[in-house]
């Protein structure tokens, strides 16, 4: 899946979860920047992302996330892993 496509889907997840259609996600965006992004919503964020991309995160990936850039990298990585597994 293209990065733009991932970003687009992810942006929609953020907008729905935080109930704010003006959120534009950038690589630097982090929990500090969104007031509602607390530990509970962080979990819900991952629950949504796992469902939408059909991927799975480790516990530590959920707790140690730095920013959206890292999130996109991890999603891309997991998706390409699953594609290469499917092709092998």
């Amino acid at each position: 899946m293209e990065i733009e496509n991932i970003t687009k889907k992810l942006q929609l997840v953020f907008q729905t979860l935080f109930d704010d259609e003006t959120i534009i996600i950038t690589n630097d965006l982090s929990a500090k920047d969104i007031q509602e992004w607390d530990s509970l919503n962080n979990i819900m964020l991952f629950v949504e992302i796992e469902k939408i991309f059909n991927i799975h995160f480790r516990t530590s990936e959920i707790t140690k996330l730095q920013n959206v850039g890292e999130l996109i990298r991890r999603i891309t990585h997991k998706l390409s892993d699953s594609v290469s597994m499917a092709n092998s």
Partner: protein
Amino acid sequence: MTDSGLSHLLPLPANYFHNESNGEDWHTLLHYRCNFRQLSLLASKLTKECTSFRDSINLKPLKFCIISSNNSSLLVPAIKGTGIRYGYHMQITEYSNTHPLLFLSEHQLNILDETYDFILVALNYEDISFWHTDSEPAYGINTKIEEFVHQLAQLQSSIFKKTGATILFQNIPRKPHTIFGHSDATITQSEQFQLHLFNQALVAMTKQTSSYLFDVASIAENEGLNRWYDERMWYLGKFAFSPDYLPLYADHLCRIISSIKGESRKCIVLDLDNTLWGGIVGQDGLEGINLGMGDPEGEAFITFQKYLLQLNDRGVILSVCSKNNKADAIEVFEKHPKILLKLDHIACFVVNWENKPTNITFIANSLNIGLESMVFIDDNPVERENVRRYLPVVAVPEMPEDPSLYTRTLSQAGYFELPKYTKEDLFRNENYQNNIKVKKLLSNRIDIQDGLAAIGMQLELKPFDAMGRNRIEQLINKSNQFNLTTRRYNNSQIKVIEESDSSYTLQVSLKDKFGDYGMISVLIGSIENQTLSIDTWLMSCRAIGREIEKAVFQEIVNYCFDREIKTIIGYYIKSDKNELVQDHYLKMGFYQSTIKKNITEWKLKIQQKNIVQLPFKITRPQGE
């Protein structure tokens, strides 16, 4: 979709909340399954500024409390949002991270609000800490379980005394891991074995007390334990199970609540072609339809019919609504060698070319039940859509295309939840069919009283007692048509009435030569200053039209006369459903004294005994 337990519902359209006209009627929501986000949104609509939303959808208020030693914060929006689908505006208080047994202390107990309708004790796996005891013999472990359940029973009784709320205990699904492997099931020290013992003891406790079981272990088992438990969620936030199942969990909880409130559904309306058998009888003929062993789908239809029969046995009414030639349809029921459902099982058989919403309304009227008690089953999506549109309160499960899944889908939809088993539930269906027989018998007679006498009716009249309390509660919360005031009371309120010296109460049971109908009528009055005021007078709809009210009236009048009570006051409070008894007191000879808003007050001065000949044999057993 992760929670296959909600596959009978349509997914909520993504743009549902953008459409302003939606959400004005919770009945349309009834047909949709919402994910956790959507449930939270619905819940916040209630909490936030949307008073117009709240008022326009006309929800019944309900105060709910969760006690859990885990993190129950996600349960709140899930339950609240789901509550709307069941017609409730739930106010929820949660005591998260609080071990339920802490409420055994006076101090903690006093925190509890006394106005809760329901309290859920959400037990979880981590609450059971007694199995790190491998050095102890098995009986020691069992004692610990007994002790814990005993404490839960004490908890139930002290919370009940304090709040009068209905208390629900949830049991605990096992973890998908073993210590000894397959032998876990046989080794008494294994967690699996002990959890099994605990769940059994909990069931026994809820049976013996006035509390109810929330069988979470079965939900988890249906969905699969590997998916039910998401260990990460436990470590991250102390969530007892995967958030994917919040909607399913909440839906099951609301089913139990609505069943305790007497709002379970009562009747299935069945389509015929491709619903009860494969193919179309009008085209394929009696020999051409697919039903019975030898064909995989034919077997699936047999299983489905078997399941319907089981529901029928436990009191769910079956009826048929099908577009067919009536003769073709009847021929299948009478002549097909494999068919299990017989015409005798069908309380109302409507086969014609009329539209289905009209027919379903007709069925509801002839069976004397409300549309909100009905479930419509049809393989045809167009018919389903039609019924959803015109009769939004009728439940219409999304039937899967494959008949192999019919039974599972209908069962997991949970329309016929039975909160507690009473003797009357066992015989209910027999009663509906008997009622039809009685009606037939009666219609052949000119004089109603002669007809009634011919069926050998026996009435038993006695004051409220502990034995009858569950059924009294059921009647008080379920009866709508013959119900003068439609006042609802819970078990503890009924107990108070039963024990009060100024109360005059009656529970009435009916038998005739066709069957034992159990308790069918309830009356609550109070006596003060030589006046009897009738707070509640109701009768189950299966006993309407038999002049039982006259016998009850005679009983009251004679009771009053013997005790020099001079006046009887009765009330009629108009509801959507009780038009039937609008003139009830007038017919009994009362005069109308006042009308305030929707309450009419009726009075009767007692001068003499009432000795009209009635077609009953009446017994009055001595109280306990």
